[in-house]
């Protein structure tokens, strides 16, 4: 079995802030041996332990609860929709998926029996749709990385530690302003284009006198020119132009079948586990789309869990959903291309710097210099956060993808194997 990335640093096993109960400690132990070989069906336990399934659901509830701001200890959870929080979210998802998997394989023979086969097929249909989301999110993270590069240019230009350490010169300010202008245009483009459209206006060499429309450079006023008119963005490589994250979310969460009591009974509770995983999948995907720029973002997908169902995670899922939705409605975030805290910081930081340096006289007076330095300092910090956080987050998104595929493959293998039906 390929287990190449189970040992990556993003493995949930290394996350220490999870698992409060003895139960979850036990689970973490299991996870530590991420992806043991497919359980041998020949000596599987004869029936699934109900308690296993309850434990799985309660642990899912705990994990989701951990993602919500705690009333007693506000410092316990990372700030919602920050990079750090998003990584937490993905860790929680991966833990849930892993436990889901072990709950299912506790009685592999049961998987092929109705109605569980049908429920699993439905779940994996939804999970496959999440794969596209993972890809789109990865592309979105790549975009954040591009943004960071522009920030880094600005940060480097303004860095107080630059050699010579003289006062900031006009050249440096212009360089920073150009980088930030390019960045702003990039970010605006993504919003306008709904994230997906790319400008395909060449590939043919322009004839003489033509194709010069792109070439708009101005050096006066706004500082050195920006070539942004000819920036052709490549946002998403993985999904077609018509693809929509918003629609995909609706497909993942829409009409998530609440298991009927006799289904729960006839599957020994596994129907509830499938429902739980479906809900966790949805809320994770939904929050990720909320946080990270991607093609045709939209959070319209509605999601409700029946109160009467007795699902321990119903409260936390709903709270998480509401909390993120609330965040998306905040005035300053409404038109953002991602609710990620760092995206907001990028916007704020670059705007501040642009304002401070607008129509500046050189050499800068001390007051201005200090303001620029202050803004630059924040810029450096955002850069650092992004630099440290983006790669692991991207790895986790890839991991989410891999594990969904792998779990699905295992289940399908299990169903295809002729001897399971004997």
């Amino acid at each position, binding site marked *: 079995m390929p287990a190449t990335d189970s040992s990556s640093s993003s493995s949930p096993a290394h996350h220490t802030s999870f698992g409060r109960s003895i139960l979850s400690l036990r689970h973490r132990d299991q996870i530590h041996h991420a992806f043991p070989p497919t359980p041998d069906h020949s000596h599987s336990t004869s029936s699934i332990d109900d308690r296993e399934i309850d434990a799985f659901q309660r642990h899912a509830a705990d994990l989701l609860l951990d993602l919500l701001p705690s009333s007693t200890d506000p410092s316990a959870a990372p700030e919602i929709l920050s990079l750090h929080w998003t990584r937490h979210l993905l860790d929680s998802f991966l833990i849930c998926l892993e436990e889901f998997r072990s709950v299912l394989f506790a009685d592999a023979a049961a998987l092929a029996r109705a109605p569980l086969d049908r429920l699993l097929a439905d779940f994996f249909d939804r999970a496959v749709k999440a794969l596209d989301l993972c890809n789109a999110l990865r592309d979105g993270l790549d975009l954040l990385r591009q943004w960071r590069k522009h920030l880094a*240019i600005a940060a480097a230009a303004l860095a107080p530690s630059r050699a*010579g350490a003289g006062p900031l010169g006009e*050249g440096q300010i212009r360089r920073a302003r150009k980088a930030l202008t390019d960045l702003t245009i990039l970010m605006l483009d993504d919003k306008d284009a709904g994230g997906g459209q790319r400008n395909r206006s060449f590939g043919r060499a322009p004839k003489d006198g033509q194709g010069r429309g792109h*070439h708009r450079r101005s050096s006066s006023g706004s500082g050195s020119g920006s070539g942004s008119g*000819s920036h052709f963005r490549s946002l998403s*490589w993985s999904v*077609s132009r018509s693809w929509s994250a918003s629609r995909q979310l609706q497909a993942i969460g829409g009409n998530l079948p609440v298991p009927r009591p006799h289904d729960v009974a006839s599957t020994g509770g596994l129907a509830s586990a499938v429902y739980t995983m479906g809900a966790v999948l949805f809320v994770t995907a939904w929050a990720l789309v909320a946080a990270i720029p991607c093609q045709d973002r939209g959070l319209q997908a509605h999601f409700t869990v029946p109160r009467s169902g007795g699902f321990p995670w119903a409260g936390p899922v709903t709270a998480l959903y509401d909390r993120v939705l609330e965040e998306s409605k905040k005035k300053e975030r409404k038109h953002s291309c991602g609710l990620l805290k760092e995206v907001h910081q990028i916007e704020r930081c670059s705007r501040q710097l642009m304002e401070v340096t607008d129509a500046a006289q050189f050499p800068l007076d001390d007051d201005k210099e200090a303001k620029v330095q202050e803004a630059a300092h924040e810029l450096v910090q955002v850069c650092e956060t992004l630099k440290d956080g983006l790669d692991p987050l991207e790895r986790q998104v890839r991991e989410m993808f891999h594990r969904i595929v792998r779990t699905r493959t295992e289940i399908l293998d299990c169903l295809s194997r002729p001897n399971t039906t004997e």
Partner: protein
Amino acid sequence: MSAAPPPPPESTGGSDKVLAAAQHIVKSLATSKNAADDMIRILSGFDNRLSSITTGLLPSPDLSSTESSEISSAAAFDAAEQLIQLWDATPEALVFEAPENDVAQYLAAVDVATEHLARGASGAGRAGVAVQLAMARLEEELRQHMVRHAVPLDPTGLCFSLRRFSLGSFEDLDTSSEFDAATPHSLDATPETARGGPLGLGNPFDDHVFDPVRPEAVDDLRAIADRMACAGYGRELADAYCSIRRDLQDEYLSVLGVERLSIDEVQRVEWKQLNDKMKKWVQGVKTVVRVLLAGERRLCDQVLAVSDELKEECFLESTKGCIMQILNFGDAVAVCPRSPEKLSRILDMYEALAEVIPEMKDLCLGCSGDGVISDVQAILDRLGDAVRGTLFEFGKVLQKESSRRAMMAGEIHPMTRYVMNYLRLLVVYSGTLDLLLDDGGDNHPSVERPEDQDHDPEHLESMTPLGRRLLKLMCYLEANLEDKSKLYEDAALECIFSMNNLLYIVQKVKDSELGKILGDHWVRRRSGKIRQYSKSYLRISWTKTLSYLRDDVHGSGSGSGSGSGHSSSRMSIKEKFKNFNLAFEEIYRNQTIWKVPDPQLREELKISISENVIPAYRAFLGRYGSQVDGGRSSGKYIKYTPEDLEGQLSDLFEGSPGSANHSRRRT
């Protein structure tokens, strides 16, 4: 193309030329205080006169003194700054579209400004601004130049060399996942696969080097990159380079017909179209790696020669999207619903990807490409999983196939044809399949059927992984056929059906690599089985008919020799002829419709029937014919001569109602 500025002479490197130009500026400025002004005036015409003026100037002897060097360098900067600003004032114009000398002047000016800034001499503020202006322009010039000199990818040229590989494979098989009898079976031809041809012989693009930028522009691009890197604008350079390369590659991909499809979409594509897309992908992935990425690598090395670090970073960064796009389809296929007909295509994809991975590794120098390579490897693994899964699925479908379509004539079942052709195709991929199916012994011993002699552990151990799987699949096929044969009410037809199918299987095995894999023993056992079926057929079908021609039955009649005995014996003989005729005619009626498609088997069957029936009839006729002959209705009893029978027997198993006239008169 003709609009491109002529490439700099090969003999002098770009930097030498620039240096020379810079010297000219320095010299000219040193000679006259008004020179700078003059020069601006001249330059503002954007023409070539500058060079003719400056070349006339002699080196100033004062240049050796430090003082004058400083003065002259300040003056040089002044001129450079002026030139940079001049160009900046005309954002519509492009330096790299101007005459060659202007390009050299501008680059020299950039060098002067950069150097001035680096020295941190007085006026660093101005130098910073000048450099920034120049860099912003160079960045833009880089984009424009790269686009203007982009070489379009000619898909027709590539298609020509690619066509060789696009032979069909499974399209000869039914495209439905069922074993459909209605589809014509043009299957007995040698299976062909997409990889069929000269693929192993080497890189078909060895002679097809694709340079994404016209060679004459590459030096210009490098000159820009050098300046930007030198001035500490590596980040801007990387950004501009990557963003433009990404977009151009996107264009190339669409020219190559590599579509951007989401996984979800691929799940919903119909098999026929998916099949086409998969075929295209197999070609596409090779073209992308061998043509596109190799071209990008060369371009990267040429343009960004200034820094190894930039070379690596930009190659990876600029090709990442293109690689992801190609790989994404691999993922999409790997998670497609499993169905047997996809197997060969998935194997093609697997092999294509496996083939290019080493080439990709070569393209990514150093370990920076490890991330990409491990992504590719992960997709390769998933395609491998899909191959295994599809084979499982095939086994399952094969076991569950239960079409009750009656094979009226007992002929070869479409399922048998489908499965055998399928398995023969698998053998073409035996190298890959042995690799993929090798689970280090067998993890699932429960699947084995110990009762089958083919499966004795030693024999199994000696087989390849694919061989073990084939054996298992054969086992499913034979078991399924056995179930189907039980559907016949007529036990003789059951034998014919089993014989036909088994013979087909044996033939398909013998004339392909399957024979080598399954072994002589396997084949011999099946041949033996066919002989048994043939014996059973004779017994079941003919014992009763022949019994009428037997003496002992006659002998059991009431004593011979007596007159009354003679009479009753005559009746009995008549009865026997009648019964024989009836039984024979029934067999004729039924078994002319039955079908034995293999001519040799058909003949052998007829011969063994003849050998049993004709001599017995001839003897019976010889012995008792006279007793019946001459009677009132002797034709009623002796309807056939042995030759008639022989002739009628030849109509059997032809699959069409016999032409014989049953009431044919004796001649």
